């Protein structure tokens, strides 16, 4: 992308503020959450309504806060790995990878070829899983009586079964290690994964037939929660949300971490930055993920999955620091590690895409109705385990 095509940075701050006057009567303050069916967890939005129009909305966090970073500093490098599963519990595999990548950067640890392929396969499966579920949740938020969500969960179940037979656990995979993966795939695992990937396109077709052309969905999502590219960049929004605004920034292309440069895939871009674009970008990304998965499953070489020099216990990187990041399904998931040469990291920081993407929640919701708030929040795709850490 050329620099000239890029919008200039905008001053921060919500762009629209509805003004109310005496004529419109009292404003209604309403606390959506922490117990609310569609806040996707224990999240609270302190909203002020004029009729049903949102004039102010402050997100309130911390109901799920367990000081993940302090836990990380009080346990060994290896000991933090299972905790990363619990950040964004939909995307344990990518969280694992982001953490392993950062630690490998910190220690200068190499990763064998087969493990890189496995990581790509797992990350793309996670992307399928996350985006499928997100589509289901988003449609649930628009009021579809569970049907899209159940179809999404039907497919998610198949991916979770794969994860379970590989890592032993469906969601808390704890699979990546510094210098490779914990175990090699079981004998028929790659074939099963191939079967799943082969069938996924058909599922997406059916899912789209169910809902993508639905006039009610179009009316509910198009033009709702419009995000400008400039604001998205300034607010550090990443992932499908950013690309829905038309900014081509996909870490798989930009950083080319792992072995992503070997794969041929495209990055879909939206032009409107509204909820519909955010939904569609995810659907299109899934189709690209299927391409990557096909290639990766075809080309995966034999060999060890763990670097022989890697040590499981006693991982003590030399003093220094590293910031590693990957393109998680929700955006840039990064880990910032500072080592003082000890067995525990001196500083262990998670850069949570969900939290940073929420920065613009108020900007998106202002001027929209309460019903749209729910849909906009759904389209941001947050997991509170990661927001609150």
């Amino acid at each position, binding site marked *: 992308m050329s620099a000239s095509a890029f919008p200039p940075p905008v001053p921060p701050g919500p762009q629209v503020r509805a003004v109310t006057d005496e004529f419109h009567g009292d404003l209604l303050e309403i606390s959506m959450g922490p117990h609310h069916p569609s806040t996707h967890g224990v999240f609270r939005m302190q909203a002020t309504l004029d009729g049903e129009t949102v004039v102010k909305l402050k997100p309130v966090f911390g109901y799920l806060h367990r000081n993940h970073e302090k836990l990380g500093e009080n346990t060994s490098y290896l000991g933090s790995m299972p905790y990363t599963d619990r950040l964004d519990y939909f995307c344990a595999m990518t969280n694992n990878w982001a953490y392993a990548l950062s630690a490998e950067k910190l220690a200068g640890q190499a990763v064998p070829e087969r493990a890189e392929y496995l990581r790509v396969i797992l990350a793309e499966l996670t992307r399928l899983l996350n985006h499928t579920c997100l589509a289901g949740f988003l449609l649930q938020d628009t009021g579809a009586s569970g049907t899209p969500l159940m179809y999404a969960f039907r497919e998610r179940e198949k991916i979770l079964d794969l994860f379970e037979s590989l890592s032993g656990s469906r969601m808390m995979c704890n699979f990546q290690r510094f210098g490779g993966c914990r175990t090699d795939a079981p004998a028929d695992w790659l074939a099963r994964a191939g079967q799943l990937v082969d069938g996924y396109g058909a599922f997406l077709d059916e899912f789209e037939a169910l809902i993508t052309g639905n006039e009610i969905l179009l009316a509910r999502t198009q033009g709702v929660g419009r995000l400008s590219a400039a604001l998205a960049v300034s607010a550090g929004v990443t992932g499908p949300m950013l690309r829905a605004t038309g900014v081509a920034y996909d870490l798989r292309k930009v950083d080319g971490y792992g072995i992503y440069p070997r794969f041929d895939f495209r990055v879909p871009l939206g032009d409107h930055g509204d909820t519909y674009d955010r939904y569609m970008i995810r659907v299109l990304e899934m189709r690209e993920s299927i391409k990557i998965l096909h290639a990766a499953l075809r080309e995966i070489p034999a060999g060890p999955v763990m670097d022989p020099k890697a040590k499981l216990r006693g991982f003590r990187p030399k003093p*220094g620091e590293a910031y590693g990041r990957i393109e998680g399904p929700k955006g840039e998931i990064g880990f*910032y590690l500072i080592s003082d040469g000890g067995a525990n990291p001196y500083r262990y920081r998670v850069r949570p895409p969900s939290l940073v993407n929420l920065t613009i929640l108020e900007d998106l919701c202002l001027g929209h109705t309460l019903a749209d708030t729910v849909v906009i929040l759904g389209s941001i795709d947050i997991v509170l385990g990661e927001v609150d850490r």
Partner: protein
Amino acid sequence: METAEQLRDRLQAQFPAAEIAVVPNPGPAAQHSLLLGAAHARAVALFLRDDPALALDYCSNVTGVDWLQAGYLEAVYHLFSMARPQGGPVVIRLRTGNRTDQVTLPSLTPVWRSCEFQEREAFDLFGIRFADHPDLRRILMWDEFVDHPMRKDYVEPDDYEWEPTAHHEVLAKARPPAPAPPSGPPEGTPP
């Protein structure tokens, strides 16, 4: 992408009065960082964002670090460019005077909106005060909480379960040989 030294020299030429130093990173990652003096940090940050060669329009990660031995807190910003997406992070660090009363740093939220919640988090967990932050409140801990739990010298409460609610009575009933409830609130919670 310029090296940290080149960048330091260029910035120094642009802002002769500013204190800018390179903090080397001895580890294999070799992500060296720039230490900025608090006085000129906002101007330097604006320059970094708007300089066409750098175009660091994207502030990815903001966090605090507590250097207990050295006796100061640090705010670390990881900058990338979406307009010119290549190269690793440009890391800038701001240091407070000490860990007790001189903990104010300039907020970079006016430069990068993405700092809004992350600076709030650094304030909440490390106690770094960001001047000119639009909404500097606690974000993860509750408003009445008094300490900063990510500091290295933070003392954990001895009983996380203890809450001054009716829940406690239920808990006591559920456990027949109930241990005596704590006589006062644990450290860190308000009375």
